[in-house]
């Protein structure tokens, strides 16, 4: 049962990722990316990371994708990437390069995979992750707030008219 759901979700994730990079319309790509982020959230749930699954839906599929869709609506009304591609030959090389990268990643990561999986039953609940964030990772956690503030000020500066 777990295998069936894993393979179904994995197929949705790979299909939507392919849709993102192959559809010429950017808004379709954004919607495909939402599907992909949702399926990755489902995989987090299967891995026992409940807090991250919720954060994925709220932060990525909610906040970040809304930003993307807004930007696409503002910048590209209708279709884009029409007309002949001046660098078509170079871009076609991307496919074998991507395949090679995939082989390399699989070899490097899978080659080092030794021993059976330790069935730990690790809980990724909000309580457990929160306790870790506020003890071992307290300093980086506080730095995150500075980072977000800096990003906000930077965006205001960049997006100002007559900057």
């Amino acid at each position: 049962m777990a295998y069936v759901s894993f393979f179904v979700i994995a197929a949705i994730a790979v299909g939507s990722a392919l849709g993102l990079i192959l559809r010429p319309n950017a808004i379709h790509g954004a919607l495909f990316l939402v599907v992909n982020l949702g399926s990755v959230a489902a995989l987090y749930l299967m891995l026992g990371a409940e807090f991250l699954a919720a954060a994925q839906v709220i932060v990525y599929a909610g906040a970040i994708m809304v930003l993307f869709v807004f930007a696409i609506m503002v910048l590209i009304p209708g279709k884009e990437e029409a007309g002949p591609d001046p660098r078509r030959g170079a871009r076609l090389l991307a496919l074998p390069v991507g395949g090679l990268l995939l082989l390399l990643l699989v070899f490097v990561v899978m080659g080092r995979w030794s021993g059976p999986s330790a069935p730990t039953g690790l809980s990724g609940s909000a309580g457990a992750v929160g306790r870790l964030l506020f003890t071992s990772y307290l300093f980086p956690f506080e730095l995150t707030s500075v980072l977000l503030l800096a990003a906000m000020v930077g965006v205001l500066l960049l997006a100002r008219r007559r900057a």
Partner: protein
Amino acid sequence: MVPESYYVALSAVLFSIGVVGVVIRRNPLVIFMSIELMLNAANLALVAFGQRFGNLDGQAVVFFVMAVAAAEVAVGLAIIVTIFRVRRRLSVDDLSVMRW
């Protein structure tokens, strides 16, 4: 229980798709979304490895990656909007100089 290596393999596939997307697309917004795809693949690998070795540190790192990704998207989209305002076109092939 599905072994964690399956999740890592899926994350490798998603990461490679993201890399190909960055190379073959001309629209900076789609390239940006492909980068988000790669960040997500790395997050999935982090969670899977954390589960494999039985500690929560991987999930804490994923939390920070999400925060940094949010900041990065905001700044990146602001830069793209500013470029569009100056150039009125949106293709990465046009952007070959640092200032104009």
